[in-house]
């Protein structure tokens, strides 16, 4: 599904403009890095795609749908096509690691056996198998981050939004995660990764979109974390 921002502005309080006049098209199957200093509007942009937020001005479309026009009881069906790794994880604290990843599949009615198979697969892939019966507060920050990633990819969504997915991971684990994301992208999933991690942006070169104070200041194919000679 294509994601399109047409003249999008998002204002929170009279004096806080988180995004300003964004025009942007992300084709189906693309891999995009979203970079920019802290507070530049990366998370806000992602939250507009999932309709956690609605734009103050302009239009956001996902596939053919204007996200503002979705009736709120249909929202669930939009969100099932979008996997999200939240910056603050948002794991369900009462569910174990296993249950957190199983939950998003159960929600869309996947039968028990399939859920079991897929969840174990994901746990295995992310090295979380031995932590499967622990609750989120019992595991380390990096483990929680991987659970969040596992949950986002469990349903093989057509769009995957990852907000700072390696912030709590060491370089080697971050590398593994990047391999995983690339393979998911290769299978046709659109990927937007908001990140501060210079190492991964520069190692796995992809399209880079840079925000500054809510404005889109750079959109580069096979870009780097920063433009050489930047400031």
């Amino acid at each position: 599904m294509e994601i399109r921002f047409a003249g999008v502005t998002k204002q929170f309080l009279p004096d806080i403009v988180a995004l300003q006049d964004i025009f942007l098209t992300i084709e189906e199957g693309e891999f995009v890095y979203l970079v920019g200093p802290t507070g530049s509007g990366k998370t806000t942009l992602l939250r507009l795609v999932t309709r956690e937020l609605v734009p103050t001005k302009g239009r956001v479309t996902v596939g053919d749908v204007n996200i503002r026009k979705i009736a709120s009881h249909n929202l669930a069906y939009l969100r099932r096509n979008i996997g999200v790794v939240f910056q603050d994880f948002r794991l369900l604290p009462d569910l174990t690691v296993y249950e957190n990843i199983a939950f998003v599949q159960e929600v869309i009615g996947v039968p028990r056996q399939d859920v079991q198979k897929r969840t174990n697969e994901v746990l295995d892939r992310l090295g979380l198998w031995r932590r499967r019966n622990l609750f989120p507060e019992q595991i380390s920050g990096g483990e929680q981050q991987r659970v969040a990633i596992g949950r986002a990819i469990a349903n093989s969504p057509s769009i995957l939004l990852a907000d700072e997915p390696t912030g709590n991971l060491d370089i080697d684990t971050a590398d593994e995660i990047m391999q995983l994301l690339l393979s998911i992208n290769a299978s046709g999933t659109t990927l937007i990764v908001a990140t501060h991690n210079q190492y991964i942006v520069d190692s796995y070169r992809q399209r880079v979109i840079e925000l500054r104070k809510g404005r889109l200041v750079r959109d580069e194919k096979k870009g780097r974390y920063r433009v050489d000679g930047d400031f």
Partner: protein
Amino acid sequence: MGIFRYIMRDTWRLLSRHSGLSLLTIVTSVAVFFLVGASILFVLNTRYIVEAVEGDLTVQVYVRDSEEALEAVARKASSYDSVSSVRVVTSGEALERLKARLGKLAEAVALLDENPLPPSVEIQVKRASFATVIARELIAMPEVEEVVYAGTVAERLQSISYFVARLSMVVLVVSLASAALVLFNTIRIGVYARKEEISKMLLVGATRNFVVFPYVFQGVILGTVGAALAVLLLWFSYGMAITALERSLPFLRLLTDRSIVLRVGAVLVLAGVSVGWICSWLAASRFVRQASRSI
């Protein structure tokens, strides 16, 4: 079908993973339903007592001294639905009664040459309010000389019974309203503690129903279990209360059949189910609406 099983499983998780919260809610609903049940039983007994007292009410009809007249009045009285018993009192009987009643003065009556007392028909009515009606109808008969009945007492009983009927409605309404309010608040505060989770579930694509129904079933279970335990408590404490009352107030006619508790209990459990359902549905869908409101 699959979804339904997941929802039931989630209900169980809600209950078991916050067992402290579940316990608190159950305790609250036991207290609330016990109070409601106790007030219902109190009201039922009061009504029953008032009815029993009312049933003691007698209308005395004095009749011209003739066998036929007596019989005619007695026949007429028996024909009323609202009359529970009719008895003929002859002059002789009446004199005996008078002597017994006067006690110390009996000798005064013994001085009389002939028996001056007329025979009468004694009518037992089922309800205080009927006494007036029957008295008015019988006085119209030519055979009847006079009708005597406890006018004030009947009226008082009537207004007391009317009042008790109204009081019982007020008690019921107030206790049911408070019960619903308290349960609603308790369930709502419980859901409040988990509103973060609700918004997280919605963010990962859960439908409203998928999120709300575990809370609804949880509420139903907590409400029902609370009501059932309250009924159990009522069963034992009603037994004890009745025993105590019969010992200290043997003249009161109470609803001693404990099956009344079961009937009240059935109502309570039903109330538990519906209050649990409605309250948790309202609470959960409120937070769902709040969480899915995009800013």
